[in-house]
């Protein structure tokens, strides 16, 4: 008797041919850059400003004709498209990093097209994108921690808004921004506790609780804003912001120096929290247990892990982090609370969790993309008034589409996400 031979590649993904969508999307964007930004682009030189005066060493500005640069960028993207097509014909996938490079080239081309006859302040755009991305990153981390243990948290919007409100009010009343920060985290954590206990103990539908919390928080903060803060802004809604901390030497580096190392404490806390959450989730026993609870709660229970308690605390701490994100909106950026100032960032954070595949670093990268989208809209308005803002606003989301096309097919949510655990 002989052992049956098994077809090579069986029980592996090799069976499925990679789809053409990556190549098609890449090709479409290459042509857009090549023709719209290149051949039919706006005349004029563009200056890519890479370093400031105070930098340790200075990198000269790059001055180049906008159309010429974009023809080069477009051709590069076409070359990447060609590689992608070739790989697809051979039955291989296009690697994600290649799509990512194409995306970055596309973004640079967009900037160059907008700023024809003008200057692109690279580190200013990067730094602002980070500041604007911080609430999304922190909201995303909160959502991720919740979903990893199997609780869908769509109340991130409410938590951001709560954090923003509490930080502003408590910061003003106590004249201490740190108290404001802590109040934001605690209040948001309490909201999470409500979500967690209703979802885990009383098995209320998680989506419904989330929606209710969002509506409730919007209502309460709107009410308090119009009845109290609007008339008593000086005493209750004037916290100021954290000071900008420059890290010696590092802040003097060109491009990344001002963007990464000249920021408020909320940004630095984010830089610490992202790797910390990653480490806890993937390198410690707490994280192993949390993921087990989110994947297969019954299995976790049979090895003595308390499913309810694990879910409760992860959701709660996730809420505190989302609250910090809210604080970053007021005392970490604008300096005062405004009506519904989270403006949908919490929902973007939800999308970012999925786009980032429940992984802290990917989630942060996806959030940065949205941060970039926001700053681009603001900046483009000033530098190229002729172009409709709506169009500019659209472009980064198209870039997101590239990212999604590149990563598609690998997304796999925690298996027990959204499912209550009922013990016999």
């Amino acid at each position, binding site marked *: 008797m002989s052992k049956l031979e098994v077809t090579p590649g069986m029980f592996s993904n090799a069976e499925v041919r990679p789809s053409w969508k990556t190549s098609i999307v890449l090709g479409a964007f290459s042509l857009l850059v090549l023709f719209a930004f290149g051949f039919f682009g706006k005349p004029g030189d563009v200056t890519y400003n890479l370093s400031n005066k105070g930098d340790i060493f200075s990198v000269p500005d790059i001055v180049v004709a906008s159309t010429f640069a974009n023809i080069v960028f477009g051709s590069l993207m076409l070359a990447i498209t060609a590689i992608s097509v070739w790989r697809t014909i051979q039955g291989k996938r296009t690697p994600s990093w290649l799509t990512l490079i194409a995306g970055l080239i596309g973004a640079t081309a967009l900037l160059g097209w907008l700023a024809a006859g003008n200057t692109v302040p690279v580190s200013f755009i990067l730094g602002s994108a980070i500041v604007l991305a911080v609430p999304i990153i922190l909201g995303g981390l909160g959502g991720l921690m919740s979903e990893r243990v199997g609780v869908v948290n769509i109340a991130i919007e409410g938590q951001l808004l709560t954090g923003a409100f509490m930080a502003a009010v408590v910061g003003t009343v106590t004249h201490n921004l740190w108290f404001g920060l802590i109040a934001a985290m605690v209040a948001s954590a309490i909201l999470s506790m409500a979500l967690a206990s209703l979802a885990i103990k009383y098995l209320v539908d998680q989506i419904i609780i989330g929606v209710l919390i969002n509506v409730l928080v919007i209502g309460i903060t709107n009410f308090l804003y119009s009845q109290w803060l609007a008339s008593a802004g000086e005493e209750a809604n004037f916290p100021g912001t954290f000071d900008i901390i420059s890290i010696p030497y590092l802040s003097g580096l060109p491009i990344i120096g001002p963007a990464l190392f000249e920021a408020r404490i909320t940004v630095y806390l984010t830089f610490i929290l992202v790797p910390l959450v990653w480490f806890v989730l993937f390198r410690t026993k707490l994280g192993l247990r949390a993921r087990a609870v989110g994947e297969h709660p019954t299995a976790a229970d049979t090895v003595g892990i308390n499913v309810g308690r694990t879910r409760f605390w992860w959701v709660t701490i996730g809420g505190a982090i989302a609250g910090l994100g809210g604080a970053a909106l007021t005392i970490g950026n604008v300096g005062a609370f405004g009506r519904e100032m989270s403006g949908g960032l919490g929902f973007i954070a939800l999308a970012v969790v999925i786009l980032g595949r429940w992984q802290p670093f990917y989630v942060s990268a996806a959030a940065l993309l949205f941060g970039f989208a926001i700053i681009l809209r603001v900046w483009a308005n000033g530098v190229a008034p002729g172009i409709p803002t709506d169009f500019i606003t659209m472009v980064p989301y198209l870039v997101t589409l590239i990212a999604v096309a590149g990563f598609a097919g690998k997304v796999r949510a925690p*298996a027990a996400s959204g499912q209550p655990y009922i013990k016999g």
Partner: protein
Amino acid sequence: MKLELRGITKRFGSLVANENINLVVESGEIRSLLGENGAGKSTLMNVLYGLYQADGGEILLDGKVQAFKGPGDAMAAGIGMVHQHFMLIPVFTVAENVVLGNEPVNAIGGLDLDTARARVKEISDRFGFDVDPDALVEDLPVGIQQRVEIIKALTRNAKVLVLDEPTAVLTPQETDELMQIMRELAKSGTSIIFITHKLREVQAVADKITVIRQGKVVGEADPKASASELASLMVGREVDLQVEKAANKVGEVVLSVANVSVLDDREQRAVDNVSFEVRAGEILAIAGVQGNGQTELSEALLGLRHTIKGGGDITLGGQVLNNLSVRKHLEAGIGYVPEDRKKDGLVSEFSIAENFMLNGSFGKPFTKGINIDFASRDEISAKLIEEFDVRTQSASTPAGKLSGGNQQKVVVARELSRDVKLLIASQPTRGVDVGSIEFIHERIVAERDSGRAVILISTELDEVLALADRIAVMYRGRIVGIVDAKTSRETLGKMMAGVAA
């Protein structure tokens, strides 16, 4: 470790799952808990393991009364359990699964996976398990997954090991290996509780047998007792283990499947280039360990799952069925008993009568114009309930309220009452009581005798041997061979492990 259960009682609402159960297992003993599906074996073990709290009675280990608040306490006290449905996280590695809940940590509080790997290796080497600590559990065959479960229990120093229906997913050879492992564990002083409904295995490995019926211990037996003796103790009456079957009159080819491949939900090739024919008046059994493509094959035969382009055809009575709609398949003359009646066979909330018309809602006799023909439906329902001996108060009882055996009879009645050319019966007696098994087997043989073609898909070798005229064995999506029904158990076992005959 000596285990003693005294007067354990567990109720779910008005249902008494365990009633005053007493059981003593000595150190190093292999004790079989024998009983039908739903007899209360698993409930009892879940009480022992702390997953359920007993409503009465106590658990003693080495004479000391234990109070388990959860599985953690039970494990700490030395009880290990290999569940029927594995308690493993599919996306974790073997090492991560083994240490989960009991993790070694390094100096900075991180997970110490090297120690975890060493633990797996140590047990794996000691018992010759051959398990790779870094493999993802979802990539492992079920037989190996089960070993991971055993390693999990052993690394926690289990002195009492409970195995809940451990052989359901194993080939006969793997079952033999498992029994060898059980004997070795017992020799080293571990007490083993072996839950099963398979008499052959009990006779082979148990030191003592406790029989449970309807939540009560109905007696103890010696492993030397005959199979029919054990069966009647388990069921509570005389059981005929043989299926009466006359020689068959084979007719023309009804179904031919040529070079068909099918992808599963993870887009992997679950059925790989399979070809076979079924003739009128014969039962072709498709044997094999669970998860080797039988499910996907049966779904493809009904049109629930598409076949891969470039393969051959599925032809039923001259009509090519490739990738037609399910309704076209049904109309072509296929009767289908799905492997999971609760998921695919019935709508639990619907009444029995409504379930009878699930795939007959397109025309006569159940409907008249756009209306349901209630009079006709009631008449048909009454007839089917009578003919198939469905034990129910009325045809308007929700199907979910019936016992497993009666639910299955409803499905079988619906499929057999249609005029079909081919009957596909997938795991027709899984989770069904012995009385219903006899009945369903007789009906399947009667279908064959009336000149229909039958495909029986079963992971139970006993069932395959009792019913089949020819046996096709599947392994990893391929048909290893199609053999005569008189082929020995041993040869079939080897084929189930992929060795071509």
